[in-house]
C-alpha cells in the first residue's frame, strides 16, 4: 500500500506539473477544452437548439447565459488522477493501457454530463449552479474516478492477476 501511494503521488505530481507547462496547455489542454465545449454544445443542442459554442464557452443565444470551461472542469485533472492510480497499481502494461484508454472515456463521459447539467442548472438557478459546480460535481467526478479504478482493478484481478497484486497494493 505504501508503494502504491508513493508511486501514485509521484506520478500525479509529475503529470500535473507537465500539464501546467505553457506548451502543453497550448498544444493539448486548450484544444481539448475547446473540443469539449463543442461536444457539450452538440448534446445541449438536442434540447436547446439556441445553444452556441466558441473557444471554451458554451452559451445560450436565447437567454445569454454561458459557461466557460476552465481548468478543473475539462476532466484533465481527473484523468491524471486515474492514470496515476493505474500506473501505480501492479499490473501488466497491456492492462494499464486498456484501463487508461477506457477510463479516459468513462471520466470524460461523466464530465460531459457535468458540463451539460451545469449549463441547464445555471439557467434555472444560479445559486444551485454555484453549489453544484463548486462542490457537488467536484466530489462526483472524483467518485467516478475511484469507481472506474475499482472496476478496472477487479478486471485486472480476473484477467491478469500478478503475484504482487493484492499483497503489494492492497493488503492491510
Amino acid at each position, binding site marked *: *500500500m505504501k508503494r502504491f*501511494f508513493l508511486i*501514485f503521488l509521484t506520478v*500525479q*505530481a509529475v503529470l*500535473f*506539473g507537465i500539464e*501546467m507547462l505553457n506548451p502543453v496547455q497550448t498544444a493539448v489542454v486548450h484544444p481539448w477544452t475547446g473540443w469539449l465545449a463543442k461536444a457539450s454544445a452538440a448534446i445541449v443542442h438536442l434540447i436547446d437548439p439556441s445553444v452556441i459554442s466558441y473557444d471554451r464557452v458554451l452559451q445560450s443565444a436565447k437567454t445569454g447565459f454561458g459557461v466557460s470551461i476552465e*481548468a*478543473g472542469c475539462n476532466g484533465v*485533472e*481527473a484523468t*491524471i*488522477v486515474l492514470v496515476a492510480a493505474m500506473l501505480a497499481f501492479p499490473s501488466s502494461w497491456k492492462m494499464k493501457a486498456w484501463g487508461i484508454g477506457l477510463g479516459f472515456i468513462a471520466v470524460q463521459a461523466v464530465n460531459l454530463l457535468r458540463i451539460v447539467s451545469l449549463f441547464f442548472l445555471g439557467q434555472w438557478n444560479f445559486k444551485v449552479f454555484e*453549489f453544484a459546480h*463548486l*462542490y*457537488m460535481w*467536484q*466530489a*462526483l*467526478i*472524483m*467518485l467516478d*474516478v*475511484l*469507481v472506474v479504478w*475499482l*472496476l478496472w*482493478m*477487479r*478486471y485486472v*484481478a*480476473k*484477467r491478469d*492477476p500478478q503475484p504482487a*497484486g*493484492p499483497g503489494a*497494493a*492492497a*493488503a*492491510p
Partner: protein
Amino acid sequence: MRNTLIGRFLLLSILWLALLLPLWYWAARWLAMPSIWLAGTVMKMMFAWVDGWAQEGVNAVLHTLVQVRMPGAQGDVLGELAPEASYPTYGYGLVLLWAMLLASRTERWWLKGLIGSLLLIPAQAWGISFQWLRDVVLMSGTYGAAYLKWSPLAQNAVAYGYQFGFLMLTPVAPILLWLAFNKRFVAALWLEAALEAKPEARAQAPTRSVD
C-alpha cells in the same frame, strides 16, 4: 464481491453526498475554524509581511503589510493587501470522505471519519494558504511584486502550489484517506475477483465476505 457491490457503493455515496453536502455547507463557518487557524498561523510564522489573519463567516482573510496602489475617490491611494480565501472551495473533501465511509460501511466508520477529518485539515490549510499567496505574490501587480521581490522561480512555485492544492489535493486527499481506511475492502475485491477467475482455486482458498 460482485460489480453490483461497487455499483451500490457508488449509489450510496451519491445519496450520502446529497444528504451531507447541505449540512456541511450550513456548518461550514464552524468547520472552517481549524483549517483557517492553521493556514493563518503558518503564514504568520513564515512571512514577515503577514500582519495577521481573520475569519469572516466561511472566508479567511489575510492581513498583510504589502502595499499596492489603488484608485480612490481623490486619485490613487496606497492600500494594504488583504486577500480572501473561501473555506468551502477546499473543504468539500470532508463530505466526500464521510459519504464514502458511510457508503462502504467501513468498520468503525465514525472513528475513521473523525481521524480523516483531522487529517484533511492540513490539505485544506494548504489550499487556503496558497490562494492567499497567489493573490499576494502573483496578482498584486507591479507594486506588490516590487515590495516582495520574489524570484520568478518562487512565483512559479506559488502558481504550482495553488493549482495543485485547488485541482489535485482537495479532491484527491479524501479518496486516498478512504483507500487507506479500506485496505481490506480493496484487498477483498482483488481476492474475490481473482478467485472468480479460477474456480478451482476457490475450492481450496478460504475467502471472507466484505458484503
